[in-house]
């Protein structure tokens, strides 16, 4: 009597024949994860985010004004853009399983990574850049261009950190982005019209701004409707 000897190879549960795996019932085909590429993966979108951040800082810092904490805002913007880019670059570095009894340099590195991943660098950069922008004398069209660049910076940062395909995402956003550009142009054109009186324009602006903040908060917060 000849019996089949135990074969080498993948172990299957008792009673299962090797190689007869159950066909997956999922309708969607699993997408194989790409080989580990570390920092090099998605380098394009990360580099684009860094360049857009740098462009925003350079655009708003030239010429550099010397009033109202402009230098401080510039330093904060540079630090925030750099840290945001570093956060994206080190996004693929995993945390070690055990963080006990590590040498000092490793603990310092982990603390640095924690700092990078915890703080809101992009938000800080946006606020610092806007503060730097208002230190200049009123310049509606450069400000509108800065608004477009800041939006592009935030969108690119999101694409880089989520690994989304840029093409479909931008196609989906195309109409809204065009509408947003029109809004920017309208805002810049409105800013070029001189105000009728010293107090009337600013009062209207105050009301519009407050209403816009309330509406935006009501629309965005989940469960509010």
């Amino acid at each position, binding site marked *: 009597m000849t019996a089949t000897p135990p074969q080498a190879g993948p172990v299957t549960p008792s009673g299962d024949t090797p190689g007869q795996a159950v066909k997956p019932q999922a309708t969607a085909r699993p997408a194989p994860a790409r080989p580990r590429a570390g920092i090099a993966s998605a380098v394009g979108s990360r580099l684009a985010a860094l360049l857009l951040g740098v462009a925003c800082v350079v655009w708003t810092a030239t010429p550099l004004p010397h009033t109202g904490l402009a230098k401080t805002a510039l330093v904060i913007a540079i630090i925030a853009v750099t840290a945001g880019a570093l956060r994206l670059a080190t996004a693929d570095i995993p945390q070690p399983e055990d963080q006990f009894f590590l040498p000092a340099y490793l603990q310092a590195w982990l603390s640095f990574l924690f700092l990078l991943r915890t703080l809101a660098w992009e938000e800080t950069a946006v606020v610092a850049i806007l503060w730097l922008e*208002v230190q200049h004398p009123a310049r509606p069209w450069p400000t509108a261009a800065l608004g477009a660049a800041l939006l592009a910076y935030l969108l690119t940062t999101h694409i880089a950190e989520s690994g989304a395909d840029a093409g479909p995402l931008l196609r989906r956003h195309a109409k809204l982005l065009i509408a947003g550009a029109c809004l920017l142009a309208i805002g810049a054109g409105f800013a070029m019209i001189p105000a009728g009186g010293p107090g009337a324009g600013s009062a209207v602006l105050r009301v519009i701004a407050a209403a816009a903040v309330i509406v935006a908060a009501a629309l965005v917060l989940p469960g509010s409707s």
Partner: protein
Amino acid sequence: MSSALPNVRGRLSQRAAASPGLGAAAADVPGVAETKPAANLGASSHVKTEEVAVDWRPSRHARRLLTLAAAALLIGLITRNPAVAGVAGPPLLLLGMSRLGTGRAAGTGRKDAAVRQGASVRPELVSVRMGLTATRFYEGEPAAVDVAVHAGGPAGAPEAPVADKAAAGYDARWMLEPGKGIEPGSATAVNGQAARFTFEIPRWGKRYVGTVTLILHDRWRLTEGRVTFDLPAVDCYPAPAVQRTEVVLSKLPNRLGEHRARVPGDGAEFNGIREFVPGDRQRAINWPASTRRGRLQVNTFAAERSQDVVLLVDATSDVGRPGESALDLGLRGAAGAARAYLNARDRVGVITYQWGGVHWLAPSLGRRQVYKIIDVLLTADTGYARGAIFSRLPRAALPPGSLVVAFSPLLDGRFVESLRDMRERGFSLIVVDVLNTVPPGRRLFADVAARRIWRMEQDAIRFSLRELGVPVLPWDGAAPLDLPLAPYTRRPLVTRR
């Protein structure tokens, strides 16, 4: 840390390369297999499906846009600069549009109307299907876990089609957080409705593959739903050592098998010639010999028998580097020996020894016995066993006349005494010495002297066993087991009392 673990695959490749003529055998060793691409690992078996609630909240992108809009409005308000306030327009437009175009699947009134209008509906419940290419595999063997998401509640619920339709409008991103001792073989984050993550486990044991976080983004990527779930546990078996030859006892039990016995029988191998006696089969007559001698002569054949083999694994001490420790070597050697003897149709059992207590599995035949043996081996760990007592093992666990192959670093005095006791009870013993490390020592005189004394003690233990007729064969774990066993596999091991 995982980085402290040695490269097991490299060691296994080295093991295969170090054995000439084992090209075919190398293919048998699962750990030697080259890393396959994720697509070549084959289809996965369904493991489980979980219904999990989605926690929806604004995404980081939405918070950034809100910050931009709020900062532009506030700074514009403070500085009375309408151009800066205008910067808030596009982000507010994005935020508003996303809010208008999204409804919740849990809502009852607005849901159907929203879907009819083509807006996306947030699924409150998704079902996540998990599958593994194998639930049990060897060290260093590549494996993959498949995950797929479906929207909706239980099957048959009226909400299911709506939710399925809604889920199609969401982007899914999977992020794998590997468990302890799991080495990911691919990227740990991937987009899509379904994903496959490859991984391997460098060291044996029961392991949790890890956790997967599913992030669902809406069309405008401003709200995200997070779901975190645990992946199933898998059993990682020790990679069996290469062993293609067997030690055969000279005195075999009267049971049909494949080993040639010394006594005549009904086997296929020629044994000798004797004179014909009534009752002999005619076809066994050796006509040339009968012609020469003038009387009828018949051929005799050797009997073919099987033997009982008991693998004894000493799990009292796990010394050495993780991945190459004495316990690792013992388990790999025992797994390889179990496979080799079961291939030869022998009955194989296993005993794992832990500080006087044991887990045991009675000798048996068949392919399933390999897995049963390895399952018993997996329970071996340094610690106290709650099983039987070694000195009172039943005959089923240790049948008389069986061959005992022990894998031990011989560091526990009680285990050595047990070996001596077994030898005195007439068991044929072979000890595979898996100690491949020495105590760390500095150059101080006391350390050097202590190390020398330790070595002398170890030599004395091995010498005393050899004097009792127990071969002690050192094995480093890299070479095939055939090499140290070679002097005993060429001829039958004489059973002496």
